[in-house]
C-alpha cells in the first residue's frame, strides 16, 4: 500500500528546468534567425552597392557594349578578406560578355532594375548572389544587360555566429540565474517542513507538549493537524491507562481473594470447612477466569476494530450459529429462545469475530441476569436508510432508565452480583462503534431488557 516517495523539491526544480529548456530552445531559434538575417542584410548591402557601381560603368560604344570594371567597387568587398568574389555580365542577347562563366541564376529570373538576392552553389561552395539588370536603349544594343555578383559566405557566417553566440551567452546567464532563484525559492518554501520534521525527530517520547505553531500561514494547518492527532493519541493513552488501572485492580482483588482463601484453607483441619473453603475458592476462580476472558475479548475487539478490513458477512448465518451454540449450552435450563429474521439474507460489512463476540456477550447477559424461567427473543430486520436492526429481548428485570448509560461503562456493575465482569456491554459497545452502528438499551415488551443495535447494511 506504500506509494513511491517523490521529492517535491526535485519535482518542482525538474519542472522549472524543463520549462527553461523549452524557453531556451524557442529563444535560441529566434536569435539564430535574427543573427542570420542581420548578417545577410549588411553583406547584401555591400554586394548591392558593388553591383550598382558595376552597372553604372556599362555603356554602348560604337555598337558594342563596353564595360569598364571598377576595381574600387570590388575592393569594397574586400571587407571580407577570406571570401571569394565571382561576377558575370550577360549582354542583351543572353551571351556571356565578361567575368566567370555559367554562374547560377534565380529560377524564372525576369530582368529588372531592382537587385535580387539569392543563394546558390557555385564551384562547390555556397555563394550569396545579387543579380541586377540594366536596360540599354541604343540602335546597336537594345535590351537588358544582366550582371551577377557573388560572394562566398564565410564573413556572413562569422558575423551571424558572433551575434548568435553572444546573445546565447546572455540568455544562458539569465536562465541559470532564474533556475538558481527557483531552487532557492523552493528550498525556502519547503524549509518549514524540514523544521517540523527535525522538531518531531528530536522530541523525546515523553514530551507531550504540542508543537509550536510557526508564523507561516500555509504551515499552520499542518501543525494543527499534527497536534490534534497527538491529542487524540494522548487521549487514547489516558483511556488505556485508566483501563489498565481498573483491570489491575480487578485482577489483583480477585487474586488476593483467592490467595487469602487458600491460606485460610491450608490452616484448616476440619474436612467440612476445607470443603466449603474450596467451594468458595472455586467460585472466586471462576469469576477470575471470566474476568480474564472478558479482558482478553475486550483487547481482541479493540485491536480488531483498528486493524481488520470489513468483509461482507451473513448476519443470519452468524446469529443462527451463535443461537445454536447458546441453546446447546442452555439445554438443561428453562430458558426459551426465539428467532425472527424478517429477511433470509441480511448481509453487512464487518468483522465476523468481533460481531460474534459482541452478540455472544448480549446472549450471555440475557441468560446470566435473567430469571430461571426466561424468554429470550432475537429479531433481525432491515430498516430504513440501509440499516440493519438486531433486537435482543429478555424477560428479566431489565435496567431502569437512569442506569442504562452507566451499564455500558467499563467495570460498572449495577448489582453486587458476583459473576459479572463489568466488561460485557463495553465489549459490545466497542464492536458496535467499530461497525459505525448504534447501541441502545430499552425496555422489552415483557418488561425485561431490550438491546437494540442498528448497523449499516451492505453497500447498495
Amino acid at each position, binding site marked *: 500500500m506504500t506509494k513511491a516517495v517523490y521529492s517535491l523539491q526535485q519535482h518542482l526544480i525538474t519542472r522549472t528546468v524543463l520549462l527553461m529548456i523549452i524557453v531556451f530552445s524557442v529563444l535560441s531559434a529566434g536569435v539564430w534567425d535574427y543573427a542570420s538575417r542581420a548578417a545577410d542584410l549588411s553583406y547584401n548591402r555591400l554586394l548591392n552597392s558593388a553591383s550598382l557601381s558595376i552597372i553604372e560603368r556599362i555603356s554602348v560604344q560604337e555598337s558594342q557594349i563596353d564595360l569598364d570594371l571598377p576595381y574600387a567597387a570590388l575592393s569594397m568587398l574586400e571587407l571580407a578578406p577570406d571570401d571569394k568574389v565571382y561576377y558575370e555580365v550577360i549582354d542583351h542577347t543572353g551571351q556571356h560578355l565578361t567575368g566567370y562563366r555559367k554562374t547560377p541564376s534565380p529560377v524564372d529570373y525576369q530582368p529588372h532594375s531592382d537587385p535580387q538576392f539569392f543563394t546558390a552553389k557555385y564551384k562547390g561552395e555556397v555563394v550569396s548572389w545579387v543579380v541586377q539588370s540594366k536596360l540599354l536603349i541604343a540602335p546597336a544594343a537594345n535590351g537588358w544587360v544582366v550582371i551577377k555578383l557573388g560572394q562566398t559566405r564565410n564573413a556572413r557566417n562569422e558575423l551571424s555566429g558572433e551575434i548568435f553566440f553572444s546573445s546565447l551567452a546572455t540568455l544562458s546567464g539569465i536562465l541559470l540565474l532564474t533556475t538558481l532563484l527557483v531552487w532557492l525559492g523552493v528550498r525556502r518554501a519547503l524549509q518549514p517542513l524540514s523544521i517540523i520534521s527535525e522538531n518531531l525527530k528530536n522530541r523525546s517520547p515523553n514530551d507531550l507538549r504540542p508543537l509550536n505553531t510557526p508564523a507561516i500561514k500555509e504551515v499552520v494547518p499542518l501543525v494543527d493537524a499534527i497536534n490534534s492527532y497527538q491529542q487524540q493519541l494522548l487521549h487514547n493513552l489516558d483511556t488505556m491507562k485508566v483501563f489498565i488501572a481498573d483491570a489491575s485492580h480487578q485482577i489483583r482483588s480477585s487474586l488476593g481473594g483467592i490467595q487469602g482463601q487458600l491460606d485460610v484453607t491450608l490452616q484448616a483441619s476440619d474436612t467440612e470447612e476445607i470443603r466449603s473453603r474450596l467451594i468458595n475458592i472455586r467460585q472466586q476462580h471462576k469469576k477470575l*477466569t471470566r474476568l480474564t476472558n472478558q479482558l482478553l*475479548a475486550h483487547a481482541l475487539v479493540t485491536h480488531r476494530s483498528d486493524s481488520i478490513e470489513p468483509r461482507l458477512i451473513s448476519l443470519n448465518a452468524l446469529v*443462527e450459529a451463535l443461537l*445454536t451454540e447458546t441453546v*446447546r449450552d*442452555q*439445554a438443561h435450563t428453562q430458558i426459551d429462545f*426465539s*428467532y425472527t429474521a424478517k429477511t433470509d439474507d441480511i448481509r453487512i460489512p464487518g468483522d*465476523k469475530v468481533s460481531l460474534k463476540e459482541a452478540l455472544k456477550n448480549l446472549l450471555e447477559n440475557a441468560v446470566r441476569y435473567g430469571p430461571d424461567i426466561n424468554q429470550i427473543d432475537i429479531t433481525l430486520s432491515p430498516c430504513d436508510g440501509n440499516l440493519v436492526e438486531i433486537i435482543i429481548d429478555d424477560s428479566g428485570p431489565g435496567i431502569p432508565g437512569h442506569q442504562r448509560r452507566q451499564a455500558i461503562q467499563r467495570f460498572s456493575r449495577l448489582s453486587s452480583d458476583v459473576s459479572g465482569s463489568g466488561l460485557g456491554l463495553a465489549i459490545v459497545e466497542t464492536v458496535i462503534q467499530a461497525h459505525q452502528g448504534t447501541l441502545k438499551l430499552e425496555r422489552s415488551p415483557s418488561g425485561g431488557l431490550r438491546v437494540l443495535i442498528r448497523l449499516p447494511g451492505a453497500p447498495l
Partner: protein
Amino acid sequence: MRILLIEDNEALADATQEYFRQIGHPLDWTVSVEMAERTLSWDDFDMLILDINLPGRSGYQLLQSLRQKGRTIPVLILTARAEIDDRVSALDLGADDYLVKPVDFRELAARCRALLRRERGAASNTMVCGNLIFNLATHQITVNNQAVELRLRERQLLELFLKNLDRVLTKEDIANKLYTFDEANTPNAIEQTLTRLRKKLSESSLHIKTIRGLGYLGHIDD
C-alpha cells in the same frame, strides 16, 4: 473406551487424568506430538484430547497428519485462543469439537461423551445417551432401565434427534424425514408428537429445545 490426552501442562494433565479416573474413564497422557505419534502407532484409542501449543510440533500438525492418513478418530481440541485465524477455526482444520482453556471438567467430559456417542452410534445398534438407551435393532427404549413405550412417529422422531444431537433441525427437516409426500402432515402434527415424546422422556437425559423461528435442538445432559 480409551482416550489419549496430549497436553504439556503437567498440572492440567494431572488434574484431567484424576478427574477422568474418578468418573470411570481413565485416560493415557503424553506431553508432545512426537510421543503421541509413537503411542498411536502401537496402540488403539477411541479419541484424542489435543492441546495446540506444545513443545516441538503443534497439535494442528498432528491433527493434519492424522487426517491426511485418513484416520477419522474423534479429536477434541483444547486451545488457549478462541480464534486461531480470521477464517480458519479449529473445526475447519479437522477437529470434531474444541474447548477454550480454562475448561470446566464436567463440560470436557460431556463433550467427550458426545463425541464417543456419535462415533459409537454409527458403529453399533445401541445408542447410549446418558440414562436413555435406544436399541435400533429391537426398537427398545429404556430410561433409567425402565422401558418406555413409544409410538412409531415418536420413535422415529427420537431416532432423528439422537442422530443429530446438538444440531438444529427445522420443521421441514423433520417433515421430510418422518412423513412421505402423500401423508397429510401439518407442522402442528410434529408439535403434538414432540409434546408427547417430551412427556414420555421427561426423566431422561435428553432435552429437546424448541427455538421458535429456527427449529429444534436435541442435547444430552449427562
